[in-house]
């Protein structure tokens, strides 16, 4: 049986890890990316996700340098995102050691890019990141450019379009819940995962073990966790042992083996 995945999400700014709330507020230091990757490898996490959050605002691609250093000693899947908008940038990241790239703003501004990237590198390399906000009337809109530019699409609609464009996975991120540690958007996760034929990675909101359980039970194939690992006494090992004990299909652990 394929296991559900727990993916620590690390935001990189100026070569260091940071973490904010709702994309723009209260950024706090979160550590050294390379040593953190080694720590998480020692935990035996399923994958790692690094997002260069200044790449799009600064109009440059994400750099592969962190992954290059990390992949000398850490042998697990990496996804890199931030500013990915040209095919050769993807090649550079893959050559540095990334297994998948996350495309977000570029997909909105040039949807054909996703199709081209999937065609050149294989759809399993391409994760499309979808950031969204929910308004007072209950409607939801996808935002690009790190949550600053509103699009005309709803998350489900956009996810289906990206699936058609041969995205390998969708990473759905609630801007409102980011960094709040108040729980995932379970309704949206259920709605989107139900309709998608490709895997859904649910992002934003983990604060307790119960939240993690609920998000995976709602239909996500994987969840990302950021603030909960960085600012509280929860490790990926705890998350996994809790989920395994409470009926979720994750990699069970016996000692340090899984």
């Amino acid at each position, binding site marked *: *049986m*394929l*296991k*559900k*995945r727990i993916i620590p999400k690390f935001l990189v700014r100026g070569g260091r890890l940071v973490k904010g709330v709702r994309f723009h507020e209260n950024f706090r230091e979160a550590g050294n990316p390379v040593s953190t990757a080694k720590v998480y*490898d020692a935990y*035996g996490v*399923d994958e790692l996700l690094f997002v260069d959050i200044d790449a799009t605002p600064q109009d440059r691609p994400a750099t592969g340098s962190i992954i*290059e250093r990390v*992949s*000398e*000693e850490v*042998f*697990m*899947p990496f996804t890199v995102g931030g500013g990915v908008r040209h095919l050769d940038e993807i090649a550079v990241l*893959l*050559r*540095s*050691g990334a*297994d*998948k790239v996350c495309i977000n703003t570029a997909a909105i501004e040039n949807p054909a890019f996703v199709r081209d990237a999937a*065609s*050149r*590198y*294989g*759809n*399993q*390399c391409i994760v499309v990141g979808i950031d969204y906000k929910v308004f007072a009337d209950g409607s939801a809109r996808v935002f690009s450019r790190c949550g600053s530019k509103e699009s005309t699409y709803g998350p489900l609609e956009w996810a289906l379009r990206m699936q058609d464009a041969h995205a*390998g*996975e969708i990473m759905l991120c609630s801007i409102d819940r980011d960094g709040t540690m108040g729980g995932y958007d379970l309704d949206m996760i259920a709605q989107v*995962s139900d309709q*998608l*034929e*490709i*895997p*859904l990675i649910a992002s934003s909101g983990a604060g307790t073990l119960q939240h993690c359980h609920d998000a995976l039970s709602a*239909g996500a*194939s*994987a969840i990302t966790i950021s603030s909960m690992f960085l600012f509280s006494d929860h490790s990926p090992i705890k998350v996994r042992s809790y989920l395994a004990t409470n009926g979720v299909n994750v*990699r*069970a652990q*016996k000692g*340090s*083996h*899984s």
Partner: protein
Amino acid sequence: MIAIVDYGMGNVRSLKNAFEYFGHDVVITADPEKLNTADRIVLPGVGAFGDAMASIRQRRLDAVLTHQALVIKKPMLGICLGMQLFAKRSIEHGDHVGLGWIDADIQRLQVSQPLKIPHVGWNELHFPDSDWLFQGIRSGEANFYFVHSFHMVCHNASDLLATTDYGGPVTAVIRAGNLLAMQFHPEKSQDNGLKLLENWVNWKP
């Protein structure tokens, strides 16, 4: 010396790092001379079958590799798409001819909701535990990282060494003499994956 075939596709750096982590000498190359002098050859691969075969043919690697595989009978390891290239044929985005070393063809995974395509993540391997390849891997703790939408269907049952479950059994490891191949990424499968690579390097035909 381990040679990793460079045909422009595949996560060669991680593979190189993985072998070097154990102190083995590795070269990433498309040079027929280096492939000839290597003790073992690894065929990586990420992307689409058709593009991969075109890329291999364009570098005239198909003849070189086939000679190493079937005539010299050098230990060959195929990984992910590299494994699929061992087959005769693939229907991924068209109808493509593979290297033809294994009597098998590549088909799209067939699953129904709630299972998704691609098959991405950690899945359990079913394997013969007395086999040299799996020494140190324990049943129940044998998860490996898969990321693929197409899979190999073997016509020769004896080629099939290990499977995983995803909407039915899915080919995970095949072996025919000096030819070994894995659908998952051992270089991304942490301790388990490194163990398999180590066992393969230590194996003498």
